[in-house]
């Protein structure tokens, strides 16, 4: 193959980097909205993998259909998680995820 052609592995590595940044964001951030941004990064890393596979393998349009479903689910997840974060803030007056210990017995 030509050296100029980008291999599939490079797209997968971009997806890996986004996934790991998202995972670290969820682990490290104490702000609930920061953790939510980590979830968005993880879903985007998965989307990069899906669309790269739809272009580089015989998967074809199916990968794009599932990436579309992932985008819709991410939007729904952001809306419901924001509503939960707002309720959390109204009740406890903070968005620190470590303050959510009311059920910890």
């Amino acid at each position, binding site marked *: 193959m030509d050296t*100029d*052609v*980008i*291999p*599939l*592995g*490079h797209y997968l*590595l*971009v997806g*890996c*980097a*986004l*996934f*790991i*940044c998202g*995972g*670290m*964001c969820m682990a*490290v*951030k*104490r702000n*609930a*909205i*920061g953790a*939510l*941004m980590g979830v*968005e*990064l993880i879903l*985007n890393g998965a*989307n990069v993998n899906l*669309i790269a596979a*739809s*272009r*580089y*393998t*015989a*998967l*074809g*349009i*199916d990968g*794009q*259909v599932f990436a*579309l479903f992932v*985008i*819709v*689910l*991410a*939007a*729904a997840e*952001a*809306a*419901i998680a*924001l*509503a*939960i*974060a*707002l309720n959390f*803030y109204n009740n406890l007056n*903070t968005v*620190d995820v470590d303050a959510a210990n009311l059920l910890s017995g």
Partner: protein
Amino acid sequence: MGSLQIEAILFYILASIAVGGALAVVLSQHVVRMAAGLVVCLGAVAGLFMLLHADFLGAAQLMIYVGGTIVILIFGVMLTSGALVGRVNASPGEMLGALGLGGLFFALMVFTVGAVDWEAVAARQPISPRDADLALDRLQTSETSNDNQAQAKADRAQTLAERSAGRSTRPLGISLLGMRHETDKLAGGKVTAGTGYLLPFEIISMHLLVVLIGAAYLARAKQKVKPNEQLTMTGGYSHGH
């Protein structure tokens, strides 16, 4: 400079912007800066989608993520900005631990991805949209090629490439309507009509509707009036008349 070189350069620019934005989300301590890094990252990922000939997905990424989800997140930041918090940022020790674990996990993934010969995997499969486009390009640039195998591959690629050359909206819409065109792998890549994604589409639209109603119900402004105060207030009001 050929189009493949331009594609490679664009890929490396967009990939570094996307990874840089993601790192900015992880490393910055202010939540508005995190949102800005997320906008940069998602925009660059939309560019990567365009580079992968998924034009509808790139536009949807820009409109839904950068235009919608980020606005919701920034509203969340604004509505919770008056939080009485002692320590919202992670300590340096926690950050170092997370960076070490993340680096180890990334190294594991790099080795895993690098251990697979993706060209060999693709060669065992039916022809991919990208290989079809490449074969078509090669056929158009060198008309005098006598290679029969390349000719046959390009002929098989013709129908697929014409569908996949940056025009993904029509196949996406058809597949969501339940009439997906699929290549019959046993009959040499013949295009037939297969079952599509009508039922998942309906399920996900109902899911989105229910989730949005639930979110509006959860996030509605509650009156902060205790039941006893409300009773005495209305009682006093009626007593006055």
